[in-house]
């Protein structure tokens, strides 16, 4: 038969050809096959250690292969926990074991698609050979020792209360997590305040804090303006500081679809990334010169009259001043001098964006992690405003957030300067508002703090906690130094200046790590300490329910897939149980005057609050500013059950009822992207694209927010005549709504009697009835007013964004022309250096000793600090070594060959003396220019050449370990938000010598 016939002759021939083909495939240099292949033996070694050598198939899992026609399999719908795209997953669970994972084709966000992380997520549920922390542990005599939960709670709380007595509540710093769901994030924010400190922060600080500040100061809200989906309605997509193909892979589904429909894709990046490989135009610029590049683009826009003059007149304040400055300062020569990009390329980008409107500028950490990032973000906003690209479908600023819930944790979670919903700690009214919602006694709360002054003072940031420990006490803006730290779902290797972190760890009285994976914190600590640390195993987001906000502000509800594994407990259970030991359990659950916000249930984690109660009774009741008030658990759950009803391009439900509850979703946008104003009963549909005046507010339309007054130096800050939401009863600019405005307009009587009672003396942002919002929107008005966006932010040090050279600049010759800021004596409670560091570097000629720019970024297989994903064998196998990307010329100059180990050293500080250095493999590639090298940031577990395995708790070390790039990153923080500089520093690369 033809099928099985051995066609000898052709078989021989084929096999020879096949070998040729294999040969070609094998010869291609690609980072995975080559580094991995070089690691294949290492991989086998790892496998041998980890799994035993001759491994039979399907021993990794406990899954039962048997299909089950009897239907005992339950399907739980959850959302991937590895990035902000928010891909839905159907988990098949049998007898409490997660046996299968199926794509959710119905999801309008991912249409069933997953990247490596999402497609490997079931591994979390596999107990065999798990690398998780399995029970509470304590460092004793230099060894990790198993202890019980009770012992852990007793010892930790005793120590905390003792230190509190000596040094006050501000001796504690709580690093929260962007992987907590919205409810847990809100609870942790409250937890820190009930303890009595603002010293709490999470990943958003080092992720998009500069974005949030920059966008917020420009037009009102610090969030992605549109959705990934909306890119399908776009004509140009410029990625500046985003490698979406690796960081947000499934977003590329929308990007590539748009591209195939004719949208132009532009990638501007020092590296030729996987995203760049899909671009129509790729431009390589020098790391850290984004403002210069953007203003170079803007120069051509103005010069050719491509700006949208009507739009600027109607909706933008201060563009004339920006224009003046740009035309004078950012001529093509100057732009090229700074960025290294030719005039022709800059022009091409400007022209492409101008001719292909609407368009997006898309960014992630490439823009945000700079000492000058607040300016970069604003320059981006200004370019988009000039082109009239903001406030419409198909155009805007698409900010790709990192962790799955970093948007939600920023909105609601443990921030040092704000309470949930961005109510500032500095404003007393914020405390009144939240004390009321939380049902706690404000006077009691005030007494928890060291003083009312410290209650109103933003706390320290996660990027600087090490200085909070080590800085001289007289230099810091609170009484004590930090003595205790909680790492509650946050890796230490994501913070810069890792080499100095060890010094801080040496000094701490107490470190508590609450994490499913104890992370590098445990190993780093054990490297320098004999005692003083506790590890508590937390459950993952797959082991509890709760809501999660994707990058596009859509809120999705996760079902619990499995019970917490081993002895782990949910984060909210741990918060509640520890609160009990510290004496604020009742306040934590809002129990006062016969009322109780949160009910308590018994679970595998012990007593824990019900998360739906948090959504319903706290988030929905208090977060009026950003509209987390309309997304009730019932609405979210209905959306999750009926994903097929939502349109992919618009995210809108054309019609349909939820079979279970009868809830009619017609008109809702998927996940009710915030702001979803008013109470759930008024059925606001959510806001798919911010500031889009083409829609009525009850259809998700809005104006720019009136956040900065009505007038500046005689110039009108409100929108001009004719600019208002579709169907608006006010057709010109107006300020924020409050009870006075409502009365003046004669709309007060449209409130119900109950609403009137609640709204009297209140604004749209603190009227607990939601009546003001309801009536404003009924009249087609946005509750937050109708103003212009600001191109000039007069309250910031750089009113117009300035290019400023990085503290460690390869272009010492440009430092004088584009110097950084002056040092600041007190920023977020700490002295912060700018000029003194930069000038010392110039004086020392640091750029000669360290001539290469070191930048860092993502790999698709791993997330964040990476301990979790490097513990997953399906992912770990794909990337077994940390590496440095280096240009062939740079490598040849140093005698370095592909796949060899090299030392990468930086001008950072090694407290033990010398400069920090990293032992990584060289990946020789033209993907980076000769002046730049790149190291991914997900690795940890090696310390300057040494494997830290002995310092990990037994069985809880990740499979793949490597050098953390942040061990060697250098000093440098954003002037506004204290974002760390990790994208531009200097280094030298040398052949490895032991």
């Amino acid at each position, binding site marked *: *038969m*033809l*099928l*099985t*016939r051995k*066609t000898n002759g*052709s078989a021989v*021939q*084929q096999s020879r*050809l*096949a070998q*040729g*083909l294999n040969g*070609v*495939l094998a010869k*291609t240099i690609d980072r995975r096959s080559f580094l991995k292949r070089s690691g294949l033996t290492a991989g086998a070694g790892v496998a041998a250690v980890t799994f035993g050598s001759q491994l039979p198939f399907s021993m990794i899992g406990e899954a039962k292969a048997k*299909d*089950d*026609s*009897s*239907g005992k*399999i339950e*399907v739980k719908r959850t959302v991937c926990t590895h990035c902000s795209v928010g891909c839905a997953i159907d988990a*098949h669970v049998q007898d409490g074991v997660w046996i299968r994972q199926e*794509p959710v*084709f*119905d999801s*309008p966000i991912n*249409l*069933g698609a997953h990247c490596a992380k999402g497609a490997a997520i079931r591994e979390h549920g596999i107990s065999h050979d798990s690398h998780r922390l399995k029970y509470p542990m304590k460092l004793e005599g230099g060894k990790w020792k198993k202890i019980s939960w009770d012992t852990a709670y007793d010892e930790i709380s005793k120590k905390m209360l003792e230190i509190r007595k000596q040094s006050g509540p501000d001796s504690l710093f709580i690093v929260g997590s962007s992987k907590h769901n919205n409810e847990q994030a809100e609870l942790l924010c409250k937890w820190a305040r009930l303890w009595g400190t603002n010293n709490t922060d999470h990943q958003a600080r080092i992720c998009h804090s500069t974005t949030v500040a920059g966008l917020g100061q420009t037009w009102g809200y610090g969030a992605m303006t549109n959705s990934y989906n909306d890119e*399908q309605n776009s004509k140009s997509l410029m990625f500046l500081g985003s490698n979406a193909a690796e960081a947000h892979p499934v977003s590329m*589904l929308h990007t590539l*679809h748009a591209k195939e429909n004719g949208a132009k894709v532009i990638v501007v990046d020092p590296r030729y990334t996987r995203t760049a490989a899909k671009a129509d135009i790729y431009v390589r610029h020098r790391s850290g010169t984004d403002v210069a590049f953007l203003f170079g683009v803007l120069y051509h826009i103005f010069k050719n009259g491509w700006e949208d003059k009507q739009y600027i007149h109607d909706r933008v304040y201060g563009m004339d001043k920006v224009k003046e400055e740009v035309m004078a300062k950012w001529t093509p020569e100057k732009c090229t001098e700074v960025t290294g990009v030719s005039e022709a390329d800059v022009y091409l980008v400007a022209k492409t964006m101008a001719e292909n409107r609407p368009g997006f500028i898309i960014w992630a950490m490439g823009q945000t992690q700079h000492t000058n990032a607040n300016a970069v973000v604003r320059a981006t906003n200004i370019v988009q405003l000039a082109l009239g690209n903001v406030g419409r479908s198909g155009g805007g600023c698409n900010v790709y957030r990192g962790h799955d819930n970093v948007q939600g944790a920023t909105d609601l979670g443990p921030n040092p300067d704000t309470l949930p919903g961005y109510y500032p700690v500095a404003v007393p009214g914020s405390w009144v508002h939240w004390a009321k919602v939380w049902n706690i006694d404000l006077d009691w709360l005030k007494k928890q703090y060291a003083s009312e002054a410290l209650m109103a003072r933003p706390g320290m940031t996660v990027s600087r906690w090490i200085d909070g420990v080590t800085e001289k006490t007289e230099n810091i803006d609170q009484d004590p130094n930090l003595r205790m730290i909680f790492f509650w779902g946050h890796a230490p290797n994501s913070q810069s200046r890792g080499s100095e972190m060890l010094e801080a760890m040496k000094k701490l009285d107490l470190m508590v790590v609450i994490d499913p994976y104890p992370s590098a914190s445990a190993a780093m600590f054990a490297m320098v300490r004999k005692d003083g640390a506790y590890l508590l195993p937390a459950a993952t987001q797959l082991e509890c329910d709760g809501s999660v906000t994707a990058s596009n502000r859509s809120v999705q509800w996760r079902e619990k897939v499995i019970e917490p594994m081993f002895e782990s407990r949910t984060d909210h259970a741990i918060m509640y149980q520890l609160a009990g030991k510290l004496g604020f359990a009742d306040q934590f659950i809002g129990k006062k005057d016969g009322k109780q916000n949160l009910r308590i249930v018994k679970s595998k984690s012990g007593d824990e609050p019900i998360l739906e109660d948090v959504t319903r009774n706290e988030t929905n009741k208090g977060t009026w500013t950003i509209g987390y008030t309309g997304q009730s658990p019932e609405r979210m759950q209905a959306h999750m059950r009926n994903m097929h009803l939502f349109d*992919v*391009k618009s995210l809108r439900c054309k019609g349909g009822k939820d079979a279970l509850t009868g809830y009619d979703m017609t008109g809702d946008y998927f996940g009710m992207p915030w702001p979803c104003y008013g109470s759930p009963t008024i059925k606001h549909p959510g806001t798919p694209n911010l500031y889009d005046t083409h829609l009525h507010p009850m259809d998700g339309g809005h104006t720019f927010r009136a956040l900065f007054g009505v007038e500046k130096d005689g110039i009108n800050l409100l929108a001009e005549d004719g600019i208002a939401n579709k169907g608006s009863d006010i057709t010109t600019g107006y300020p924020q709504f409050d009870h006075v405005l409502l009365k003046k307009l004669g709309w007060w009587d449209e409130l119900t009697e109950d609403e009137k009672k609640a709204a009297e003396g209140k604004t749209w942002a603190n009227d607990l009835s939601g009546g003001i919002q309801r009536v404003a929107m009924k009249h087609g008005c946005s509750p937050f007013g109708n103003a212009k966006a600001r191109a000039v932010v007069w309250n910031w040090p750089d009113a117009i964004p300035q290019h400023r050279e990085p503290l460690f600049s390869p272009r010492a010759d440009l430092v004088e022309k584009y110097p950084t800021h002056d040092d600041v004596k007190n920023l977020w409670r700490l002295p912060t250096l700018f000029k003194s560091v930069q000038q010392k570097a110039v004086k020392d000629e640091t750029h000669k000793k360290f001539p290469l720019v070191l930048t860092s970024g993502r790999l698709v297989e791993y997330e964040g600090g990476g301990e979790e994903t490097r513990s997953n064998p399906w992912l770990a196998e794909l990337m077994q070594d940390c590496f440095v990307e280096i240009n062939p010329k740079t490598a040849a100059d140093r005698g370095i060959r592909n796949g060899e180990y090299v030392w990468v050293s930086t001008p950072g500080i090694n407290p033990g003396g010398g400069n920090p250095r990293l032992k990584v493999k060289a990946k020789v590639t033209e993907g980076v220019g000769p002046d730049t090298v790149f190291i991914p940031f997900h690795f940890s577990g090696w310390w300057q050449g040494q494997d830290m395995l002995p310092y990990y708790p037994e069985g809880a070390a990740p499979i793949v370990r490597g050098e953390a790039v942040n061990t060697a990153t250098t000093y440098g923080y954003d002037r506004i938000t204290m974002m760390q500089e990790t994208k531009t520093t200097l280094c030298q690369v040398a052949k490895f010598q032991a």
Partner: protein
Amino acid sequence: MIRRLLVAAAVLTLAACMEVEQASTPERQAGQTVRRDTAAWNNEPLANGPKWSKGDRTSWEEQIKKRQLAQHEDRRIYQ
């Protein structure tokens, strides 16, 4: 590089540039040493999976082809 691969591929298949006859092999075939294998459509559909009528190849194929359109984002986008 891709081009070269394709050229190689093209040469490779000159000998057999036609789709070969696909014989249905639910049972062991002459000259074939392997044991029998059940055809996909002869299985009972799962309780929570796609449906077809057991033993009916056409109905199985119909549903497979329908399901396959999930790999085409257009079908979901312009549904």
